């Protein structure tokens, strides 16, 4: 069982899993880090991203490189309306945001059921090809996802550390009043952060829909994943997302293959509980006041 070829396959699968986990969690952690909002509706936007991709790519047949970002753009733009209507009441209010956005999640999910009914659909992958390297087999689509995850991580890091808007966001996340005193327009910065976060969620949702299946309930597991990754890595930390995603991806791949599903779940849950008790701000997060 522990042969080299199996281990290699487990490793490769782990990368594939980590990549998608990282993409899913990036938007989630941004919203928390900047606006202290626990976006319980994260999964709903991911699901909407999946449907947008389904209609643009699966139905209308736009080329993949156009459809994927366009789908995410459409969802993020539409979500700006919700930012005005819903989110702005919850900034800096962690507890209210959890329950209130849970309500938003429910509303969006069931509107989707009314609009598109509950059956599971499939979004065709960008490429069907399977890569064979020796005994290893994995779909090329996962390579694409891994590539995009790496690019996204780098882009996020550079943005928040070197661009004007990114620095403004970090200032606003540390202390809103001082940032505003320095001339940062918190309303538009929040809006920008929100847009980017939802864009990432919808983009990840598109990939998720291609890798797995699409239904109005497809967002729920993505919310769980985002939560676990962000708790592991630390809420609000970009390197934390990378670490958390890699940990979870490899753990699931390794434990699931060698020890089965129940063990994998128990260990993941147990580790998260332990972390929450001992170090709730995550491995790379900052201790909250």
């Amino acid at each position, binding site marked *: 069982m522990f042969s080299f070829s199996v281990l290699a396959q487990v490793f490769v699968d782990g990368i594939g899993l980590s990549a998608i986990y990282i993409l899913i969690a990036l938007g989630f952690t941004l919203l928390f880090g900047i606006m202290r909002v626990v976006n319980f509706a994260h999964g709903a936007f991911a699901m909407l991203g999946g449907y947008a991709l389904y209609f643009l790519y699966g139905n209308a047949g736009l080329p993949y490189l156009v459809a994927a970002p366009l789908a995410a753009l459409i969802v993020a733009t539409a979500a700006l309306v919700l930012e005005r209507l819903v989110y702005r009441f919850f900034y800096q*209010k962690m507890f209210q945001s959890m329950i209130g956005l849970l309500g938003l999640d429910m509303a969006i999910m069931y509107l989707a059921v009314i609009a598109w009914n509950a059956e599971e659909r499939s979004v065709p992958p960008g490429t069907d090809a399977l890569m064979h390297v020796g005994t290893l087999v994995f779909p090329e689509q996962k390579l694409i996802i891994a590539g995009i995850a790496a690019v996204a991580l780098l882009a996020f890091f550079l943005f928040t550390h070197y661009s004007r808007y990114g620095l403004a966001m970090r200032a606003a996340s540390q202390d809103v009043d001082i940032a505003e005193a320095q001339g940062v327009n918190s309303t538009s910065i929040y809006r920008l952060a929100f847009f980017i976060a939802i864009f990432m969620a919808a983009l990840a949702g598109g990939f998720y829909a291609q890798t797995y299946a699409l239904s109005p309930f497809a967002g729920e597991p993505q919310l769980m994943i985002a939560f676990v990754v962000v708790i592991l890595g630390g809420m609000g930390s970009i390197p934390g997302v990378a670490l958390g995603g890699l940990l979870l991806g490899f753990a699931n791949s390794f434990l699931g293959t060698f020890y089965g599903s129940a063990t994998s779940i128990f260990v993941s849950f147990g580790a998260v509980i332990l972390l929450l008790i001992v170090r709730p701000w995550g491995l790379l997060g900052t201790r909250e006041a």
Partner: protein
Amino acid sequence: MSKQSTIDSGALHQGIGPRKLGERPARRWLTHPAVLAVVVLALIALPLVAPDKFILSVAVTTFITAIAAASLHLIVRTGHVSLGHAAFMGIGAYVSAIATMQMNLAFPLALTLGFLAPAALAFLIGPVVLRLTGKYFVLVTFLLGEIVRTVFVNWSSVTGGSSGISGVPAPSSLFAQPVPFYYLALAFVMVILAFIGRLLTSEIGRTIESIRESEPLARCSGVPVLSTKVAVFVLGCGLAGIAGALQGHFVHYIDPTSFSVDQSLNLVVINVVGGMYTLIGPIVGTLFIVLLPEFLRGYVELQHVFFGIVLIIVMAFFSGGIADIRTLFTRLSQERDTRRGTR
């Protein structure tokens, strides 16, 4: 806007919500003895006026849910929202079912075990998890609830696994009839609500309030914070076990899906929408959550959308819940005044 946010996120309010010190949203007139007497009499008279089995069944479901929601309310009043409460209900249900079916114990004894078992688990994990604040406590209780559910699913030899336990008997041949069982459930809910109400208005209740408003301050005043929280947690989870046991003997069937995160979430929503700061809250919330689907049957998806929107509005504008609906109007008039420039 930003000024408000700084105050809200301050240390004084542990993330549960802004509250002006000194404001008591308790609806005093609702707890007036005369009003309570009228409600109780009406409930007692219900089976005589409307012996419809369906109405009695919905009423019993409402009572059981009210017990569970009120037991969660106790825990919420200490400032901790548990997203795993249904798991404790489940433990009570399984223990009581196994006690009556396999150990042939009498119902009262089985019910007591149904109280003690979840209480014991709460006693074990309480001291560890109650140190966590706000969102972390929510997450840990969610995960714990999932672990308990996984145990229900996998420990097939004892719990029947996913197929559950069928044929759970009624408390006795008398209580197998709908009307006697209705009175049994009514008795339970009245006693438990009275007990919780008395507890919350007593000295202990004030201690609980002080813990929620500010743990550091309470600790400095000499309040044994962790022990109080653990005691309340144990009591709340034990009462949830009673609710679960009653449900088992009512539906005559229990399985893991009846005690999953969906039910836990339901209880949290009841408390949040009904009102987190007063016992009237979970009662109002239960009525809302249990009875509304009965009116909206046939429009299931719309029902969920409606719930979602209600949650958003309640959390955004009056986090004291429906019981605190006065705040909504106050805030609305404040917003109007601000816009008019009279403030």
